[in-house]
């Protein structure tokens, strides 16, 4: 079970959280102006990388706040977490 550092509450076990998938997928400002292909990409296409992955988590059974995390999908190491709106930190080497 992962140990996830919530930026607001500190390290907590994974069962307190829900993963919201890939981060930084902005909802189009004016969806009506987006063509079908681009809207389909927004809805369904994700990068699913092997390695560092920026993703969203919500501390469902804690502060209920969403935040961003950098996780290595290969080792499951959480490299960093940060609040929504904060600059994404560089992954430690």
């Amino acid at each position, binding site marked *: *079970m*992962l*140990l996830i550092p919530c930026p607001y509450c500190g390290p907590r*076990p*994974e069962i307190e959280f*829900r993963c*919201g998938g890939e981060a930084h997928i902005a*909802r*189009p400002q*004016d*969806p*009506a102006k*987006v063509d*079908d292909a681009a*809207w*389909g990409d927004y*809805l369904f296409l994700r990068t699913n990388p092997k390695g560092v992955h920026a993703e*969203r988590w*919500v501390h*469902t059974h804690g502060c*209920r*706040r*969403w935040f961003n995390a950098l996780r290595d999908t290969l*080792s*499951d*190491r*959480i490299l960093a977490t940060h609040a*929504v*709106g904060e600059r994404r930190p560089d992954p430690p080497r």
Partner: protein
Amino acid sequence: MAQTYRLARGGRIDRASPIAMRFNGTTIEGYAGDTIASALLANGIHFVARSFKYHRPRGIFSHGSEEPNGLFAVDRGGARIDPNTRATTTEAVNGLSLRSQNHWPSLALDVGAAVDVFSALFAAGFYYKTFMWPRSFWRQIYEPAIRAAAGLGRAPTAPDPDRYQHAHAHCDVLVVGAGPAGLAAALAASESDKRVILADEQAEMGGSLLHDMSSTIDGSSPWSWLEQTLARLHSRSNVQLLPRTTAFGYYNHNHLGLLQRVTDHLVNPHPSGPRERLWQVRAGEVVLATGAHERPLVFPGNDRPGIMLAESLRVFANRYGVLPGQRAVIATSGASAYTVAADLLAVGVQVTIVDVRRHQDCAVEAAALRGAGCEVLAGHTVLSSRGRKRVNALLIAPIEAAGPIGARRLLPCDCVGLSGGWTPAVHLFSQSRGKLTFDRKLDAFLPEASVRGESSAGAVRGSYQLSACLAQGWRAGAAAAGLTRERHFKASATRTGFEPVRLLPAANRQGHAFVDLQNDVTANDIGLAVREGFRSIEHVKRYTTAGMATDQGKTSNMNVIGLVAKTLGAAVPDIGTTTFRPPYTPVTFGALAGPSRGRLFEPVRTPPAHAWAVRHGAIFEDVGQWKRARAFPRANEDLQAAVTREVTAVRTSAGILDASTLGKIEVVGADAAEFLDRMYTNRLSRLAPGRCRYALLLKEDGYVFDDGVVARLTRDRFHVTTTTGGAARVLQHMEEYLQTEWPELAVYLTSVTEQYATIAVQGPKARQILAPLVEELDLATQAFPHMSVRTATICGLACRLFRVSFTGELGYEINVPADYGQALWDALIESGKALGITPYGTEAMHVLRAEKGFIIVGQETDGTVAPDDLGLAGLIGRGKADFVGLRSLARPDLVAPGRKQLVGLASEDARTVLEEGAQILADPSEPLPMRSHGHVTSSYWSPSCHQPIALALIADGRSRIGQRLHATTPAGVVAVQVRDPIFFDPTGARVHG
């Protein structure tokens, strides 16, 4: 039976505490401190089991958790029966009853042993080849027969009466294994102020020190060093010692699962205490000192009772004071067996050593035994064993210098020790996803790179010297605690080194040479699998089942890998290991379930009028975690009769329903209206305070996600209801958009589901029932029309009063603080008594709404249904530029013709109530496979329409209204008329009554 094989003195057993147990009905004796295995051996019993596949007689094979043979059903009385319990790790307790497994009618006389005679038919994968035809036989005959013959112990049938506890712990340093390396690690780590946990699977801590009679550590004997060390650890307040605790799983981020056996070693455990405790430990650093397992040698007949691992002979003699036999042969390819020989000689056993290695390769250890009366036959191989229920001789022969096998010789014996080298127990390390590397010199996979916060020490790293184990343990423990203190341990030398031999040399080999004893996998099976084309070790494992028994191949894995490599002419590291998976040893289901059973399995949520409903004979249904009254049948009434009465009451006078389970969210803030506009399909910003609207919530993909009533209390305060099951996910969905897409909006979301009791009063007489209880509010339609909300006072309570209807009748939903729900219910019942107020349940509620064609999210929708499919396109706010899901409604597949649309169905025979889920056909005579045009989503007998009614999703359904289609039923197809989904009061006049 008596302890005829118990030594007169010695061992760590408590001779002042004799115990008696039953083994297959016979009494055996032992002492406190024994395991079941050592007690059996003390009574001279080696033959204790039948093997899994061939039903061959088997004996105790080891002294620890790697045991493949000695598995029992252990009966502790009552329903306390554990099948497949390893005799070598179960402590002997007075009164235990043990039963051997896998035989019929008895251990000595087993019909299944016939399999052994015809064993040529049962090679690896036999069931894939033998039971192929006739094809129909597989399911009816072959599979049931194989299933009956396979398997080991029988699961108990009565509920487990014991309690199991879950515990969570955090520590800075977790040390797994309390042998020399683990003890040194704990000692070092505990010199800091860090929290240290030391866990060991055995009853006594000490590992190999417990059977070491000859080494010295810093001038002390192993036992006195152990006593001092444990005393020191006990005295330190930052150390927690957990004996009888197996670390069985090593998961992400240093999260480990530990199983502590709390009471199995006690005769009279405290009745309220837990039997086992499942620890979840989150450790800063982990030190793995998990030791190593000895490997057997592979030759025909290497499985007879009396044959065991060499080190185990030493353990039984030294630790338990038990003579495994009087005449021992030790077959070895390594040096450690010479220490075994020396210790057996010291207790009077006659010993012969058969060493596969050449004279010059074992000269040093052989010299040490010179003059001790022990014959050492170097350069010899074992061809086979003799004896049926106990070994009585080994057939051996010299291996000539050029390789051929020389003249045979029979060595009489009553026990045999096998030593084919050592395999580090890297299971936990590998589970942690640490990387293994193969060490050719040690013929072993060793821990190489840790994932994080882990280090290994001692035999698990291939360090077999006692001094090295201690030094490594100390260094690992100190480093884990952030200390840099070095410490030197002076210990006597340990005999180490072995020559890996996959299969003992022989001229022509006859009989089974077992590699995996628990699953009866032979060297021939491995060879066969490779010849049949299996190359990957993972495939060989699955085909032969080697390593797949409950022992997880602890004694067999390296021999299997080595044999595959040898057969393929490849190097061992190119073959690799199979995946190590938790648990390291079996974990009881009771421990995993912990307290989550029976009443505590899942929380039960009950609405405020629940107790009243119970008293009034309601039958209930589970809706999520809620218990909801389904109907209130009177005496002699069946469900249908009760539902008909309840529906009729709502249509003619009034019904009362506890609707408190509906989700309720308060949406507050300057931007609340704007936020709801972006979330819901409707334009809610135009809603005037005091008004409500039925609203749809979509996911971004355009499909219906939830529905409910949005009520505007004031300009910046909304009371939003959700479906009962959707309450939590709707709040999460709203929070997600609020926090991640529109954090600039000033909106606060609060769940108030449990804060309010919601009582619905529905029916033409609802107003008359409410009126006497409501103060300062004109209930007349002009003042308080349908789809309005007021804050008011009812029975002196502040309430949120909704005029809404899910029945099509004049109706109200009254929200009061939850604690007053029952009082309000009572007052309404009292007020409506003369007017025929009738409590109704969810079944009547469903019928009432279906008569009106109202949908239920999750019944009419399945995550692929858009608003227009339901005929609810009118709920999409005209001219809205955006809301969650709007853009998707223009996706090509959502505007394409042929989508399924909600319609009503009426059975033409006016009797058949369709089944929900029934398929809709256009032409019942169409050849198979027929095309499905849709399915029934809801179906009831309608008391108001006196006919069956159904809702269905049918391709292009709205354009097919008036057509005849067919619905499947278990008895054949039924003709149905497609019609409008509103069956009752199509103009909707009644809600305004």
